[in-house]
């Protein structure tokens, strides 16, 4: 009986740690999914600071926004971004671009989950089913 209780306690501890972690993470979600971003549509223009990178879980690039802040543009996962016409290292530094998508929920974070990227007359619909 004592050992059963001990085992139950250990199992509860393990399950508790798991659940606690999951809840801890709720308000801060980012990058993955859309939960970490505002529902409202958002648009920012600027000049390219670092070109498109097709590395990691999501393609990314940074721009110097017209508001003076450096914005981190999170695009679709690399294969999907590539399908939309983006290539690694594309769009030279200094080019004017506009990102359309959703801003990060954290106001201090200049990050846009980008659905559509416009560069001159080229439009990259990385999430075509959303925009």
């Amino acid at each position, binding site marked *: 009986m004592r*050992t*059963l209780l*001990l*085992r139950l306690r*250990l*199992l509860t*501890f*393990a*399950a508790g*740690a*798991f659940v606690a*972690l*999951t809840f*801890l*993470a709720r308000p*801060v*979600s*980012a*990058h*993955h999914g859309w939960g*970490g971003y505002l529902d409202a549509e958002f648009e920012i223009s600027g000049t390219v600071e670092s070109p498109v*990178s*097709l*590395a*990691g*879980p999501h393609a990314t690039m940074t721009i110097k926004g017209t508001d003076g802040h450096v914005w981190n543009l999170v695009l679709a*996962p*690399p*294969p999907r*971004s*590539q399908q939309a016409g983006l290539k*690694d290292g594309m769009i030279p530094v200094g080019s004017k671009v506009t990102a359309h998508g959703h801003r990060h929920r954290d106001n201090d974070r200049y990050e846009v989950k980008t659905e559509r990227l416009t560069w001159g007359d080229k439009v990259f619909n990385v999430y075509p089913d959303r925009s």
Partner: protein
Amino acid sequence: MLDHQVVLDAAKWLQGSALGHFMRESGAWTYAIVNLLHILGVASLFGSVLVLDLRLLGLGRRLPLAPIADATGPVAAAGFALAAITGVGLLVTKATEYVGNPFLALKFPAIALGLANVLLIRRTEAWRDRGRRELLPREDRRLAIMGGLSLACWLTAIAAGRLIAYW
């Protein structure tokens, strides 16, 4: 705590390594494939560990421990190796972005504890004598505690690992 600058320098070095370049520059699907192998490794590790730990905790006690341990051990070890190797690849892709990520800071100690627990359990007489003699209740209890600790460690490592992406 580790000095932030030291961690950042190490992350920069990792990111600039040959593996870092390979992960970033060898095609759009590289990360996805390595990520898939990482999950397969974690699934093999946790699946086998779960069966063994639950048995140590007393579930299915009528099944002898020795064959369960013999069947799950190598699968867990192979799963861990696969997860560890691919995990390095995932990390070095953009290592600097993970500096300061609290879930990563939780994941690594959890893995270290889990591995230390494996070493400890393998050193106990009860573990070495499994299948050769009937274990004493005291020994069963000890193995149960270690099995519970193991579950807690790997569950924490998996939860923290998954949440790295949500920081």
